[in-house]
C-alpha cells in the first residue's frame, strides 16, 4: 500500500525541482543548444543550396559560352562568305570594266586609224590631182612646142567636132 501512496513532501519537492530544472535548462541549455543546432542545420542546408546554385550557374554559364561561341562561329562564317562574295564581285566588276575600257580603246583606235586613212587618202587624191595637172601641163607644153603638132591637134579637134 505504501508503494502506491504518493508522499506529500515528494510531490511538493518534485513539482518545485522539476519546474526549476525545466526553467533553468529551458533558458540556459535547451535554448542555446537548439538554436545552435538549428543554425548549424540551416548553414549546412544553405551551403548545399549555394553549391547546387553555383553548379547550376556554372552550367548556365557554360551553355551561354557555348552559345556565344556558336554565334561567333556563325558570324565568322558569314563574314567570310560575305568577304568572298564581295571580293568576287569586285573582281568581276574590275574584269568587266577592263573589258569595256579595252573595247573602247580598240574602237577609238579603229576610228582613229580610219580617220587617218581617210585623211591620208584625200591628201593623196589631191596630191595626185595636182601632180596630174602638173604632168598634163608639162605634157601639153611639150606637145605644143612646134606648130605642126598644134595644127594637127586643132585639126583633130575640128574633126571631132565635125564628127559630132
Amino acid at each position, binding site marked *: 500500500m505504501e*508503494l502506491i501512496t504518493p508522499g506529500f*513532501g515528494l*510531490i511538493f519537492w*518534485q513539482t518545485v525541482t522539476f519546474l526549476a530544472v525545466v526553467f533553468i*535548462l529551458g533558458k540556459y541549455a535547451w535554448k542555446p543548444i537548439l538554436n545552435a543546432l538549428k543554425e548549424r542545420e540551416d548553414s549546412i542546408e544553405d551551403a548545399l543550396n549555394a553549391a547546387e546554385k553555383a553548379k547550376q550557374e556554372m552550367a548556365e554559364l557554360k551553355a551561354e559560352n557555348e552559345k556565344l561561341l556558336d554565334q561567333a562561329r556563325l558570324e565568322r562564317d558569314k563574314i567570310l562568305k560575305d568577304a568572298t562574295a564581295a571580293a568576287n564581285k569586285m573582281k568581276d566588276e574590275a574584269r568587266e570594266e577592263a573589258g569595256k575600257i579595252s573595247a573602247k580603246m580598240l574602237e577609238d583606235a579603229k576610228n582613229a586609224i580610219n580617220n587617218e586613212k581617210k585623211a591620208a587618202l584625200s591628201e593623196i587624191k589631191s596630191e595626185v590631182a595636182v601632180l596630174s595637172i602638173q604632168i598634163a601641163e608639162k605634157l601639153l607644153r611639150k606637145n605644143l612646142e612646134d606648130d605642126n603638132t598644134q595644127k594637127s591637134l586643132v585639126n583633130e579637134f575640128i574633126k571631132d567636132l565635125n564628127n559630132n
Partner: protein
Amino acid sequence: MNIEKSFFLRNALITSILLTTLFSFTPFGFTFASDDTGEEFNPGDMIMHHVTDAYEWHFFDIGDTHVTLPLPVIIYSGENGLKIFSSAHFHHGESSYEGYRLDHGHLVAEDGHEFYDFSITKNVAALLMGSLIMIFIFLSVAKGYQKNQGKAPKGIQSFFEPIIIYVRDEIVKPNIGPKYERYLPYLLTLFFFIWIGNILGLLPGAANLTGNIAVTMVLAVFTLIATLFSANKNYWGHIFNPPGVPLALKPIIIPVEIIGIFSKPFSLMLRLFVAITAGHIVILSLIALAFIFHSVIVGFASTLVVTFINMIEILVATIQAYVFTLFSSMYIGMAVEEHH
C-alpha cells in the same frame, strides 16, 4: 553508431564489474548481521525498505551498526509552526523528537495533529542531486555550443547531441507537428530527467526516484496540464461532440472521452512507476535468494543473474524515458492537431 555501441558496451562492462563486486560482498554482510542478532530475515521487508522512501539514506550495515546519512526533517503545522531538525534524532525510528516519531518509516505526530511534511527524504535528496547533475551536464553541453560555434561538436556535447536530435526529430516533431518547438524544452527535460533518474536509481545504494509514484504522478500531471492548456477547439470538439457518433450513443461516448483525458496521464504515471519499481524488486528478490538459502553458491549464481538483469534495466531505463516522452508528445500532439 559504432562509437556509441562501444561506449555502451564499455559502460555495461564497468557497471557489471561494479555490481558484481558490490553484490558479492553485501550478502555476507547481511548474513552475518542476521546470524549475529538471530533475527529472521524477511525478504519482503528488505525489498520494501529498498524501493520506498526514507528519512535517512541507508548505505549498509556493519554488524549492528547502520551506516546511514541522516537527512533534514522539515515539518510545518498550524500548531507548532515550522520545524527543521536532523532525522538522526529519531535514532533509526527508535526514539521520538519534538513530538514526532517514525512509525514503520512514516512520520507521525505523537498527539495526532495534522501537519505538512516537507522533509528532505532520500528520494528528495536523490531528486536534488539528479537535478544538479542534469543542470551541470546540459550547461556544459550548452557551453560546448558556444565554444565550438559553427564547428563540429566535442566531448560531452557530441555524446548528447545525437540524443537531443533524436528526441527532437523522432519523438517530438512527428507527434506534435509544426508547433513542436514550444514543447521541446519541457519534453527534452522530461526525457533526460527520467533517463538520468532511471540510471542513477540503478546505482548501488541509490534511491528509487523514478520508481516512486509521487514522482511519476507529478510528471504525468505536467503532461496533462500541457495537454489541457494547449488543447484547441478541434480537441474539445472530439470529446464533447464526437463527430460521426449517433446521438443515442453520445451519452456513453462523452463520459468515456472525459475519462480518457485523465486515463492517459494515469497510464503514464503507472507505467513508469511499475517498470522501474518492478525492475528493482526483481533484482532485490534475486539477491534475497542468497539470504533465504544461506548459501554462498546461490549468492554467486544470483549475482550473475542480477548482473544480467541490471543490463536489461539499463535498457529499460532508456526505453521508459523514450516511452514517457513519446506518449507525452502524442497526447500534446492530439491536443494541438488541426482539423483535417
